[in-house]
């Protein structure tokens, strides 16, 4: 499979209430590396297994949630094409200068989705100072810390106008629908979509309030690491949501928990390999509990209601 156009989810800028507690959470417990700080006080982080300059930005604010999520694309020409097509589709978009608010990043195209989220598309990023070995490499360069998350993986976003949003993501940006959940009236509640071989790069759920973050997920390798992450959740008295468990959707292994500002985090491992010739898997409301919480087979009260 030649991965073209949008190649993957690349970064998220997250709002936090308490910077010190948040840096401790993401750096010491999840195990991301701190890359630096911007002049306006935002903290840049990345996973030990990522190459790009940074993948998580923390911004101190009055309320938590996400500012925007970035998707990396294969070339600059693709961005120019998307600019034209986005305007033709009827969405607002604008260019963000290279090396402006995101050090190390080339120009970005910021698109306002019908769901109320801002996504940034970009194709050029500087190599980080620390990155995985390239020449007869070891499995890591520095021993990973804490949960040892490898990097940013995906996010679930809540907002209105699900159909219009997903039509843009698929029709203009070339994402594939991997799984979806249908409501009894035949309309959709959730779409899990991808631009790569991963079973999801992002998911959208129909919700009345715009621009909400349900969770931001970081990658782990396997079930053992999910168990180790769950140990650290308890040892560090992190607010637990659910897990360790498996999803029916994507078949991945997972923990859900909250950062010190109430943003939901996920550590995610496994999941099947998606290929663009695969048919869409469809869930209904009677079975979606098993889709999300495969072992408990029902959602907890928090899952649909709690977002930032």
């Amino acid at each position: 499979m030649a991965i073209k156009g949008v190649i993957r989810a690349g970064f998220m800028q997250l709002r936090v209430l308490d910077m010190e507690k948040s840096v401790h959470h993401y750096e010491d417990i999840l195990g991301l590396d701190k890359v630096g700080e911007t002049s306006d006080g935002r903290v840049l982080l990345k996973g030990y297994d990522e190459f790009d300059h940074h993948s998580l930005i923390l911004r101190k604010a009055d309320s938590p949630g996400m500012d925007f999520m970035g998707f990396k694309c294969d070339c600059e020409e693709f961005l120019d094409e998307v600019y034209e097509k986005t305007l033709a589709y009827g969405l607002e978009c604008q260019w963000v200068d290279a090396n402006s608010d995101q050090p190390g990043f080339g120009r970005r195209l910021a698109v306002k989705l019908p769901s109320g989220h801002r996504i940034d598309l970009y194709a050029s990023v500087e190599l980080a100072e620390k990155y995985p070995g390239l020449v007869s490499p070891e499995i890591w360069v520095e021993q990973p810390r804490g949960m040892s998350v490898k990097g940013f993986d995906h996010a679930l976003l809540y907002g209105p106008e699900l159909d219009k949003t997903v039509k843009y993501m698929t029709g203009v940006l070339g994402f594939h629908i991997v799984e979806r959940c249908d409501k009894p009236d035949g309309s959709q509640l959730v779409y899990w979509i991808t631009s790569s071989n991963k079973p999801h790069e992002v998911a959208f759920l129909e919700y009345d309030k715009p621009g909400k973050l349900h969770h931001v997920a970081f990658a782990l390798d396997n079930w053992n690491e999910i168990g180790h992450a769950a140990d650290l959740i308890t040892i560090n008295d992190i607010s637990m949501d659910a897990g360790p468990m498996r999803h029916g959707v994507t078949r991945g292994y997972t923990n859900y928990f909250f950062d010190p500002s109430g943003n939901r985090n996920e550590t995610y491992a496994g999941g099947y390999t998606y290929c663009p010739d695969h048919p869409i898997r469809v869930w209904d409301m009677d079975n979606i509990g098993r889709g999300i919480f495969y072992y408990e087979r029902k959602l907890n009260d928090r899952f649909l209601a709690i977002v930032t």
Partner: protein
Amino acid sequence: MNKIFVNNRILLNKEHDSVLDTFEALHDKHLLIGCRRGGCGKCLIKVLQGEYEVIRDMSQGNIDLKNNIVLACCIKPKTDLKITIL
């Protein structure tokens, strides 16, 4: 142990527990247990009587400190409290 008076019930607050922790420990479903970290805004209450301490930052969305409208996961009773769930 401080008491939390809510509607016609009395909940006993253990030392170190937030108001929300008290609901959670007693499996009291009148408050949805959300993020427990002051972010999701679901545990909004009004303190009608008594003194409390704010133990973590609260999302500024719906709170109103002057009128004692606060997030239950972010406050700890210093005295008995009378609260109402919003």
